[in-house]
């Protein structure tokens, strides 16, 4: 038989192209980082975070443990392909080293080892053969699962799987073909030389009885090499670019680089890290409501393909459920906000009229925000609480309220938002206050992230109430009803405040525990992130969320966001209360009881 030594070229070309592309890409990304981010990254290599980054690279990049935790079958599919292939490459090279007792061989030698070495007779050759066959079997099971997933996704417990683009299809087809073709080539090799193991030898025997092996032997190796080459060339332009990018992303994340309001190379790296696994699709409440183009996986895909993103970018509520579900930990909310700012032309806004706003000296400031003014009960309850505590509080926006700037920021109008931020900052700094209390989580998030207020502690009202209860300044009293706590998006997922509001509610009522709570809490549907989302979709989200709560038959739904309250209150199935209203009720109850006991003791005395 004639030995054809040329079939390695498709593989070689693919590999060289891929590595050259990746090296240039990573260098470009690094150059485009800001000066401080570069310093952070250089310093990072001297810290212990490097080990955490390496651990995460193995856990998420190879083992896919995050997906495994969410969906074991899907996790196994990713793990078998990624970790299985990785081990196959490593074991392949070890096998060649064991055979030749040297490191001096071309790197493609290990890939086509069964072709170049028909008679492996070194010590342990049988073991290596068995291990290689076993690994290939594992990978093939992963490929089989991937094909099944495309046909019947329900088996994976997934309601949806992602739509594909042309390059993705090429890459996907070549990836699926690589391993069956390798099995074919190795089996044919085993048919000739019996150099395989349990799987390839068995198949080889079948081939020799049924097929003219000599006719297709070289062709099979050519096809195997071509599938590898095609995959490597298509990789940078397909979703499989996430494989190398994710490692870069993990290292940058551990270096402490944070997402910014503007679109930078870190944002680009995050965008390429998306593996389009589709887990975010199931997390998105809008999908249930019939909106199927705003989900994070699609919006990132549109950006990568330079398609029109207007609808997909501005139609999302930015509730953050996808960000919590994302196994790659991409900062999807920040990416979206940065992209909105990048995609929007600055529309001129001018707020000179705010100059007339009142200014006052105070120790504590209460900023209600636009949404609290829309739900006056919260405002009155806060005043009731402050009166009871006897604190000197300046109600900053009692008459003339100035927006915190978050709605403009979410609409991509960074400069205009900065005007409002500056105005509020001036007012707050001039008051000489030490504490700023907010009753709207949207404001709270904006004040925490976009404002610079040195020396002032910014507190959400639920956190403040929790402190007061723990200090014994507010009474603990059971109002005797069953409640559900709804985590507002900007407070829970946005600011990671989960426990303090729960403590406050537990002090006054009997709280029912839900399955979908904390990071997995539902969105009310009216978030300010949605700019051009149809009202029908919003109402559907609200209705579905309320239906979920109604199943538990609570006496009241407690939330900590005026916007959630306003939205849920339209649905009349459960009365909705803010956490401040609950506290104010408890105070009233407490005061009444005190009066009653005083009256009773007086009666007894007289």
């Amino acid at each position, binding site marked *: 038989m004639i030995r054809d030594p040329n079939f390695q070229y498709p593989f070689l070309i693919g590999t060289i192209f891929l590595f050259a592309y990746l090296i240039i890409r990573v260098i470009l990304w690094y150059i485009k980082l800001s000066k401080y981010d570069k310093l952070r990254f250089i310093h990072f290599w001297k810290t212990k975070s490097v080990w955490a980054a390496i651990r995460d690279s193995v856990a998420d990049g190879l083992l896919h443990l995050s997906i495994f935790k969410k969906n074991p079958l899907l996790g196994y599919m990713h793990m078998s392909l990624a970790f299985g292939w990785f081990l196959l490459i490593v074991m392949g090279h070890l096998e060649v080293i064991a055979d030749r007792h040297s490191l001096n061989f071309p790197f493609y030698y290990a890939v086509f080892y069964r072709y170049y070495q028909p008679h492996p007779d070194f010590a342990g050759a049988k073991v290596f053969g068995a291990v290689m066959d076993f690994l290939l079997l594992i990978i093939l099971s992963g490929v089989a699962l991937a094909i099944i997933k495309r046909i019947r996704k329900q088996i994976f417990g997934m309601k949806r799987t992602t739509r594909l683009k042309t390059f993705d299809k090429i890459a996907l087809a070549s990836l699926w073909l690589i391993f069956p073709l390798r099995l074919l080539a190795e089996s044919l090799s085993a048919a000739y030389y019996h150099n395989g193991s349990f799987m390839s030898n068995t198949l080889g025997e079948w081939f020799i009885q049924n097929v003219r092996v000599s006719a297709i032997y070289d062709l099979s190796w050519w096809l195997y090499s071509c599938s590898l080459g095609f995959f490597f060339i298509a990789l940078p332009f397909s979703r499989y670019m996430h494989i190398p990018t994710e490692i870069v992303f993990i290292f940058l994340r551990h270096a402490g680089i944070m997402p910014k309001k503007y679109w930078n190379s870190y944002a680009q790296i995050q965008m390429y890290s998306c593996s389009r696994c589709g887990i975010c699709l199931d997390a998105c409440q809008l999908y249930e409501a019939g909106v199927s183009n705003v989900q994070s996986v699609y919006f990132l895909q549109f950006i990568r393909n330079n398609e029109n993103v207007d609808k997909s970018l501005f139609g999302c509520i930015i509730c953050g459920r996808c960000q919590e579900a994302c196994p790659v930990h991409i900062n999807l909310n920040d990416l979206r906000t940065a992209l909105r700012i990048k995609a929007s032309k600055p529309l001129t806004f001018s707020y000179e009229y705010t100059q007339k706003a009142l200014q006052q000296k105070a120790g504590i400031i209460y900023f209600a925000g636009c949404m609290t003014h829309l739900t006056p009960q919260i405002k009155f309850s806060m005043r009731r609480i402050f009166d009871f505590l006897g604190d000197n509080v300046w109600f900053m926006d009692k008459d*003339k309220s100035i927006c915190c700037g978050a709605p403009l920021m979410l609409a991509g109008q960074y400069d205009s938002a900065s005007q409002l931020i500056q105005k509020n900052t001036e007012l707050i700094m001039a008051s000489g206050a030490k504490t700023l209390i907010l009753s709207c989580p949207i404001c709270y998030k904006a004040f925490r992230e976009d404002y610079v207020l040195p020396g002032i502690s910014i507190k959400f009202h639920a956190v403040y109430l929790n402190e007061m209860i723990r200090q014994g300044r507010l009474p603990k009293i059971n109002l005797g009803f069953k409640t559900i706590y709804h985590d507002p998006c900007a407070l829970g997922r946005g600011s990671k405040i989960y426990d303090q509001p729960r403590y406050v509610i537990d002090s006054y009522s009997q709280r029912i525990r839900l399955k979908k709570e904390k990071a997995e809490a539902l969105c009310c549907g009216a978030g300010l992130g949605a700019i051009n989302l149809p009202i029908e979709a919003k109402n559907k989200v609200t209705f579905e969320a309320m239906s979920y709560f109604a199943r538990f038959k609570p006496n009241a739904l407690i939330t900590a966001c005026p916007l959630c309250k306003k939205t849920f209150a339209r649905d009349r199935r459960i009365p909705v209360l803010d956490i401040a209203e609950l506290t104010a009720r408890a105070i009233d109850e407490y005061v009444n009881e005190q009066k009653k006991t005083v009256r009773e003791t007086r009666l007894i005395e007289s």
Partner: protein
Amino acid sequence: MATFDFLEIRHLHIDYDNLDQELLNEVIREEPSFQWCISCGCCTATCSAGNHTTFNIRRISLILRRGEVEGLEEELKKCMLCGKCTLVCPRDIQLRNVVMNIKKIILKKKTA
């Protein structure tokens, strides 16, 4: 009495024969809910910017319908985009998107 004539006061006329509804139509195309407006004024009552100034979103909606586009841009600069108008609207009109779109279209026309 022959001089008493409503038609004499030219600047108060709305000439429906020469109505410039291009901007209005474009806004409605982008945000169809805008055509349901009944000019009730809830949006203006709740408006944060309207609390500081004479900014009146109901009036903006009215003059847009009359095709009076001049001065619209200057007036809309005052909006803080807080979204309260959208929440109180009894007709579920996405006023926040309407404001964004009017501004976008005016900007597009200016640059074009």
